[in-house]
């Protein structure tokens, strides 16, 4: 609880005491700078046990100029097409009102969808591509063509086989159809069927859920856990249960929509801090404690910090040790959303908490999803037993939403047992190691080739910057011609000048598949002129590995 008097009196004395004890002062911060012993190449030497390297290189200025030029031309032609549509020179393909309704208040806001109508439609064939196999390291794609420039599609009936999958969040490779692997899932399917037909609080709690929750708690090293049927709903339905009016939410700039929705639904005051920026967060915390609530100046009932483990659009990892030290200093709560990082980082796949070598008691609410690394669906919230018991009674999801279905729960159980090694093999650990190797190899090769890549060196999410709107469509189409499926992201999800292609490395990718993708990227990078990096390393990395002191720009 943020109690001003405790901070002013008790904490200041506590802070002063720690200053004298530099050796143990890993947590002590003064003006945002840690006074710890600095080790070679590691800043914040006592907080971070290994190098924390993140890249967010800026492209040369001419790239931004060309990007705006491209958008400008697109906008002009958008206005032209809209004019033609309004004056009947061209057929209208979007929704319009009937003739009788023309005098009423307009139902469809024409200008709001300007971007969708005029720019997105032109390259729409790169999204929503239907696949017809399991999204493993390779998948089968249904071929579709368009006759009227992407307004409608039709399927030719042909199936493109074995497209290399660089877009699925299949980090540990558990999206598989191998009969031996799915044996227990088949048994549970035959025992329980597929439907639950009830909510958790009525008749929807099965023994499978209890088993799964105990397993999740053991996996994470916490007291208790609760699972929900849908990952998005875990965030949006449980944050309102934890905070309400009179509380303060400090949320990262680039948080996922589920966190933003949950925060807005709760009715608490929301303040945004710059992405992964500890100084910005500390300033907000200090202001919150000093000034209290906006009009009444009372202390905030609760201050909660919402962060994610790995941010899926940037590939950056949260600065957890510093945030935990801040939260302890200012007595705030921490809600960590490990949707992409559980199973994907950490020596044994236990997420960012293990990656930084911290204890799970440091984080108040651990949240994660089973969609990404475990090949299933659903989410969990874990932490102290009091917290989880509270959520069992007060969460909207527990009261109203259907619970997870048993075969999916069994898939999570078998995947988690595999990762923990409880099934008697070392397959889980091998998968985690393979993912780490693949990630490092892929990122290193892309850096060497000269592309601009965002994010931490250890994160399996690799965004490759494309910048110009024309290149988004060209990139995705040409990669598909080479039989590689990628996900490209443009304006509303990313800033307007920074459109990107996002690769998700998987433990199921073999070295040959990654080499195929890298060679294709090399060729395409030369053809489309995407290699903007000014810091590309040579192709002899062994000369650089040992002596690298990371200076980040």
């Amino acid at each position: 609880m943020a109690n001003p008097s405790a901070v002013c009196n008790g904490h200041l004395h506590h802070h002063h005491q720690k200053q004298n004890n530099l050796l143990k002062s890993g947590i002590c911060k003064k003006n945002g700078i840690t006074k710890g012993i600095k080790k070679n190449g590691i800043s914040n030497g006592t907080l971070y046990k290994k190098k924390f390297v993140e890249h967010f290189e800026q492209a040369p200025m001419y790239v931004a100029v060309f990007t705006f030029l491209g958008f400008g031309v697109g906008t002009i032609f958008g206005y032209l097409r809209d004019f033609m549509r309004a004056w009947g020179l061209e057929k209208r393909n979007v929704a319009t009102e009937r003739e009788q309704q023309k005098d009423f208040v307009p139902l469809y806001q024409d200008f709001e969808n300007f971007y969708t109508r005029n720019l997105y439609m032109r390259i729409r064939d790169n999204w929503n591509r239907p696949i017809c196999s399991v999204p493993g390291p390779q998948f089968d794609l249904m071929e579709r063509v368009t006759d009227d420039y992407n307004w409608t599609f039709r399927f030719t009936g042909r199936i493109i086989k074995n497209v290399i999958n660089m877009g699925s969040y299949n980090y540990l490779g558990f999206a598989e159809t191998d009969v031996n692997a799915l044996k227990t899932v088949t048994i549970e399917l035959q025992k329980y069927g597929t439907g639950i037909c009830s909510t958790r609080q009525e008749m929807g709690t099965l023994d499978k859920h209890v088993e799964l929750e105990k397993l999740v708690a053991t996996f994470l090293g916490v007291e208790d856990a609760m699972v929900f049927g849908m990952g998005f709903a875990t965030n949006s339905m449980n944050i309102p249960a934890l905070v309400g009016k009179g509380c303060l939410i400090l949320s990262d700039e680039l948080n996922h929509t589920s966190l933003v929705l949950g925060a807005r639904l709760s009715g608490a005051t929301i303040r945004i801090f710059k992405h992964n920026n500890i100084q910005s967060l500390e300033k907000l915390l200090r202001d919150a404690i000093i000034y209290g609530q906006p009009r009444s100046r009372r202390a905030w009932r609760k201050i909660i910090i919402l962060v994610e483990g790995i941010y899926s659009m940037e590939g950056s990892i949260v600065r957890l040790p510093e945030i935990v030290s801040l939260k302890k200093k200012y007595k705030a709560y921490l809600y960590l959303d490990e949707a992409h990082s559980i199973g994907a980082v950490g020596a044994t796949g236990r997420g960012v908490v293990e990656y930084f070598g911290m204890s799970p008691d440091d984080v108040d609410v651990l949240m994660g999803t089973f969609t990404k690394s475990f090949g299933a669906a659903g989410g969990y919230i874990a932490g102290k037993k009091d917290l989880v018991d509270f959520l069992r009674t007060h969460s909207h999801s527990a009261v109203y939403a259907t619970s997870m279905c048993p075969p999916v729960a069994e898939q999570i159980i078998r995947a988690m047992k595999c990762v923990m090694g409880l099934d008697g093999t070392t397959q889980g650990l091998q998968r985690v190691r393979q993912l780490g190797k693949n990630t490092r190899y892929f990122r290193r090769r892309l850096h060497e080739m000269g592309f601009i890549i965002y994010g931490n060196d250890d994160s399996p999410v690799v965004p490759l910057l494309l910048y110009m709107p024309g290149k988004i469509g060209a990139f995705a189409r040409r990669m598909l011609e080479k039989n590689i499926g990628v996900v490209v992201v443009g304006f509303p999800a990313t800033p307007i000048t920074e459109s990107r292609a996002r690769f998700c490395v998987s433990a199921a990718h073999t070295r040959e598949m990654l080499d195929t993708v890298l060679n294709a990227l090399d060729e395409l990078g030369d053809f489309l002129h995407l290699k903007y990096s000014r810091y590309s390393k040579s192709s002899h990395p062994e000369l650089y590995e040992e002596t690298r002191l990371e200076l980040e720009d």
Partner: protein
Amino acid sequence: MDIKSMKNYLYWLYCQFELITCSYLMEPWEKLLFYTFNITMLVMVLYTAYIFVSVHISTAFQFFLHLFGNQHENTVSVVK
């Protein structure tokens, strides 16, 4: 060989132009409109340059010559 690599290079430049100005995304009639507009603008600029630049340069040259000529006379008179 040189001609072939030159042609490839020009084709690559043309592709870059298409990508940067988003004309890669346009339908054929839009491309026609866009290129017509661009080429018309370019031709007009070149024509204007051809007509007027030579006149401007010769006028400027004369002006500077006059300036230097005057100065030369002035210095000569002072020395004397």
